[in-house]
């Protein structure tokens, strides 16, 4: 047998490329975000340590709170529809076994499109004068500059674009339900909706929690859609937290404050991730 020392050496060599990239492009930036948030810095230069001053500014900053409000409004408009529709699509794909490949393909295809392809198509369809949507509805609305409609329209486009992924999660969940459970239910005389209510739905509960939390985290990370379609407008009603962070850092070159925004954002996302882990563990403990 080869010595332990040589095994250790091989391990180090095999790990080196990943670890180098990990430290340089993940670990250090993560620690730097924390440090930067305690300084007054421009995009390229760190000037002064200011302690918690950026956080003090943050909690009194109406622009930050409104961006957070917009982020949660977007999440509210997307999380439930994306999860519910994902489940419905999964049930349909699972039901029509002969057409499942075609159905799944149709529902999933938009998900693989680059974001700017999605936004270009949405923009073309929603053009005030020549867009097909206004033609069909017989109106002349400029959707993206309408205070009431801008965010819902971005949300609808996002649902179309990403629901395929949630469908996939639910399909996997459905396929993991043991056949015997359905057979037992059939013997007990359960049919149609009762099968769904008493077998499928409870069995899908952990998957549903996973899908909801993954979706909530994904929705909170929204940036590209609003940035490209509305550039945060009209009147900043679609400027989300990441957009605010981006502007603070890259337009106003206030990297210290942007890092504080990033820390607040990171805190929310990590808390949600941990909440999901706890929720799932609790359910497993009870089962």
């Amino acid at each position, binding site marked *: 047998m080869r010595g332990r020392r040589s095994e250790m050496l091989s391990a180090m060599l095999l790990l080196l490329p*990943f670890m180098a990239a990990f430290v340089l492009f*993940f670990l250090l930036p993560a620690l730097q975000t924390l440090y930067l948030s305690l300084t007054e810095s421009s995009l390229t230069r760190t000037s002064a340590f200011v302690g918690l001053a950026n956080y003090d500014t943050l909690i009194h900053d109406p622009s930050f709170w409104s961006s957070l409000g917009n982020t949660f409004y977007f999440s509210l408009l997307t999380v439930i529809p994306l999860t519910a529709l994902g489940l419905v699509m999964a049930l349909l794909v699972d039901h029509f076994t002969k057409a499942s490949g*075609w159905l799944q393909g149709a529902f999933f295809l938009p998900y693989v499109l680059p974001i*700017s392809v999605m936004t270009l198509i949405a923009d073309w369809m929603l053009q005030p004068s*020549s867009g*097909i949507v206004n033609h069909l509805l017989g109106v002349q609305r400029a959707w993206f500059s309408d205070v009431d409609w801008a965010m819902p329209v971005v949300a609808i486009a996002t649902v179309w674009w990403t629901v395929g992924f949630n469908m996939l999660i639910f399909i996997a969940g459905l396929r993991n339900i043991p056949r015997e459970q359905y057979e037992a239910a059939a013997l007990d005389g359960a*049919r149609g909706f009762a099968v769904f209510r008493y077998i499928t739905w409870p069995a899908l509960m952990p998957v549903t929690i996973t899908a909801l939390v*993954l979706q909530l985290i994904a929705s909170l990370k929204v940036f590209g859609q609003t940035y490209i379609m509305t550039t945060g407008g009209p009147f900043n009603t679609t400027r989300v937290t990441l957009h605010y962070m981006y502007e603070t850092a890259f337009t106003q070159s206030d990297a210290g404050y942007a890092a504080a925004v990033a820390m607040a954002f990171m805190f929310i996302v990590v808390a949600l991730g941990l909440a999901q882990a706890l929720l799932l563990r609790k359910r497993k403990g009870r089962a």
Partner: protein
Amino acid sequence: MKHTPLHWTVVAAVSALALAMLWVAPLLWALSTSLRPEYETIAPTLHLLPQRWTVEAFTKTLGAGNVPRWLFNSALVALAVTAVTMAISLMAAFAFSQLRFRGRNLLFMVSMLALLLPFEALLVPLFRTMNGLGLINTYAGIVLPQVVSPVVIYVFRQFFDAVPNDFRDAALLDGASPLRVLWSVYLPMSGNIVWAMAIVTFIAAWNNFLWPFIIVTSNDMMTIPLGLTQTYDAFGVRYAQLMAAALLGAFPVALAYIVFQRRVTQGLLAATGLKG
């Protein structure tokens, strides 16, 4: 489900068909738009199909402007990200799974921390790092941060953990180096999952918008998702050309998905931890 009552089947069939049509309609509309002459896109009456079919929008898009260059950049970046991610993740996962060394679990846990922290929150210091390294507007600058993919390592490690140790021990006894064992014993066994993760990585890299948006400022270095947001300036409001450019930008990933549908779904599910 054979016990479903008839009326449910009808409701399900109608909603399946309606939803599927609704979901492909925008893509078909984009395709239909891209195949007409420009004047038809602003005509007052709307026709679902082109009145005159033409591929002019495609030839113009490919013949002028930056679209070919952006497509080339995207292909180069996506292939590089995929190759590097696969190589370094396979090596790291093999070490984490099959080799014994001090600090193994701690190192693995620290790497998995990256699954929790959102990449988006690291943009500012990441930009500063790249700026310090002089990598703004370079291919290396676009590629490098995208190769850190803890989820790929996690999936590969799960896979390697499931392989019986006898394989490794026999090969090591024969005097093979760990890299040799990884290459000729483990890799051939893990073909499916490697392909699945590679295709998912390729699609994600092709579609990545946020990082190129931060690191690229010059028109020549843009990838197609980023470049497409600039096309208004280039084309004005020429919608046939815009749709042609959009479809060209989506074509490689749509093709990858259609050809490798199984692997894409397998890879995505493995990545969410729902299926090994």
